[in-house]
């Protein structure tokens, strides 16, 4: 799962959101680091819907603009939990490796 897809899942885990809402939530969660374009967003949404992780949950029209809401279903929640566990394991592994690294080890190739 890409970082962008993970962030979209996180945004939908909070509450059902429409496309623009997802973009805003992802931007806020990533401190303005990840800015989803419409093409990327709908590529991710298509794949998530295909995988059965999310589904459209309703439509409203605001100022003549169609907003379709998406929500996470139990499969999506499970996938998010599994991915989070995987990332946590990875991070703790990284911490262990970095902690075990001797601090005064000379760099390779230096005299």
């Amino acid at each position, binding site marked *: 799962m890409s970082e962008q897809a993970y962030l979209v899942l996180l945004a939908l885990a909070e509450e059902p959101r*429409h*496309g*623009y809402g997802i*973009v805003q939530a992802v931007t806020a969660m990533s401190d303005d680091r990840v800015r989803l374009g*419409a093409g990327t*967003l*709908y590529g991710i949404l298509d794949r998530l819907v295909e995988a059965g992780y999310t589904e459209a949950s309703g439509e409203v029209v605001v100022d003549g603009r*169609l907003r379709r809401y998406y929500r996470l279903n139990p499969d999506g929640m499970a996938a998010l939990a599994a991915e989070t566990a995987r990332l946590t394991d990875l991070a703790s592994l990284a911490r262990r490796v970095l902690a075990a690294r001797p601090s005064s080890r000379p760099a390779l190739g230096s005299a």
Partner: protein
Amino acid sequence: MRGLERSAAFWLRAYPPAWREERADEVTAVLLDLAPDGARRLDARTALNLLRGGVATRWRQTPPVHVYLAYRMFDVRVPVQYREWVRQDITGPGHLRRNLSGRLWLFVFTMYNGIAAGFPAATVLWWTAMAVALTACLLLVRPEVAVRRRLQRHVRRRARDEPRDVGGYVWVRRPRERVMAEPGARVLVVLLAVGAVAWSVAAVLAPTRLSAVSCGPACSELVAVPRDAQLLVTAPLAAAAAVGLAVAVAVARRCRRLLAAAPAQPARRLVGLAPHAGIAVALWTVVIVAAALAEVTGEWVLSLSALAGPVCLVLLPSALAVWWHARTWGGLALVDLCRVAWTGRPVTVDELDTDLVRAVALEAR
């Protein structure tokens, strides 16, 4: 804002039509929300992003090469995840061109021969005749029926674990459309009459015929020789006409006996001929007369007429009998008369046909 919407619509064309149909409004709204105030068109980054997304979406929905070629060249059903792609391929604009171009490999050797021989006049003539005949065949078929049959073959659910709907489309039952007996039989009579007259005349008048001559021990070849005995042609033609009359009497008797007891057809809707059937009949007439003329003038050796003339003469009286009964008994389909005339079995009751319609349209019904 209108300029921005137009720009969005332009770049959204990167996506497949069905995807656009479903999502364009929603994505346009997101694009308008994301665009800075006063923007008149999408910026390059957004446009590229849409282009990439559109290509990726098309790529995801398109079957791999081996599946594509098997479908396109041999009409093999594609796996279930590509049903939506097949539905678009069969119903989308240009479906006839795609369908026909997929069969072009059948003509590879013919085309190679033509090219290798430097397009001799005879080859060009043959291709023209074939193209006209093919066009005439296509004009006799209702386009929407051809599409429906292909959908039934490629998109219909065959197993229980396959999904019921195909990208927002569902299967419904609808009456079976059948061509009315009278206009259908009339076309049959016209074509057989043209064939019988043109080819019989050609068979009688053709100046040359095929003959097997010996070219040494255990060898013989077919060569064109001048016509000699006229009786060899006229006798079979007369016999064919006599047989045709006898068969027509039997066909008329079958029609009288079985058509009176034709069952009601609740699942049927009678339709007229295809919209361009008149043009198709005219084209067939041209092809038949041209082929007959080629033999009369000696351009071709007597061959097709010797066979097609008698065949038309055998069938024409029966076709006339069928046409006459079609006029007498209203409310019948051509298929009923053909079945009764050809097999002598009673008319069968049609079952309902199926059709793939948009789920939204179904709700509105």
